């Protein structure tokens, strides 16, 4: 069952609130960055590739 009387008590966490919330915030940010990094890398790579293949087609040097 819920350990805290009110939302305010939940935020304050008996005085340890800042430490707990900052830790969870930093962890969340890191996890999000870890997920975004490969997605961004992939999108950037595919964009470059489509540019290269488009420019390759226009310049006639078809790359198999």
């Amino acid at each position: 069952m819920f350990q805290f009387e009110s939302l305010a008590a939940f935020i304050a966490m008996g005085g340890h609130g800042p430490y707990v919330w900052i830790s969870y915030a930093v962890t969340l940010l890191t996890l999000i960055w870890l997920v975004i990094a490969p997605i961004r890398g992939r999108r950037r790579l595919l964009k470059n590739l489509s540019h290269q293949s488009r420019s390759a087609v226009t310049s006639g040097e078809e790359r198999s």
Partner: protein
Amino acid sequence: MARFPEWFHRLGAPKTFYSMTGKWLPWLAGAAAILLCVGTVWGLGFAPQDAKQGNSFRIIYIHVPAAFLALAGYYVMAVAGAVGLIWKMKLAHMVLKAAAPLGAALTFVALFTGALWGKPTWGTYWVWDARITSMLVLFFLYLGVIALHYAYSSTEAASKASAVLALVGTANIPIIYKSVDWWYTLHQPATIKLTQAPSMHPDMFKPLLVMIAGFYCFYALVLLMGTRTEILHRERRTRWVADLAKTGY
């Protein structure tokens, strides 16, 4: 060469690995999200307070899983390196390149949460506790592998060199951990060790298991995503990647 089940070689081909693991990603993402949300809400809101440490012990629900994965991640990196070196499987080197920054980030999380946890417990952010010090050394080991990987110009030599370093590091981790523990007991025998699970009340322990499972799913998810991006990078000259770029999938 050692005989392997057929699927190991099929999985070894980057193209098949890419398409096969593509199907697993949504499931992994779903599982990780659910487990992490449930575990966090359970740990933060419903787990009982710790008698001595009060609510600051709730940081355990992210510190311990991150520390777990940081150490396990190093071994994943070393196994990938070994497979890459011994069976010359390019895919294994890609897994290593994806695992290194992931492991380093999780070690950073473990260190950061450990330091923040130390403040209410011991009054200072940095305590030369055995577990935290070993975590710091593990962080340096990760940085060593990443720095070595980026120092080489040719990716092939880079992956082989970092594989060798990951293997040497793995052989040394138990030694480092044991010597840091021995050093710690030498200087501060009395005080309790941080994150030693002090005969935790079952209600405290269950959310921890959920969080650990969540972190494992998350680790697998990000490792696969990173490896797949690395595959696209390494195979950018092949036809199937070019088609992929066109279809924009």
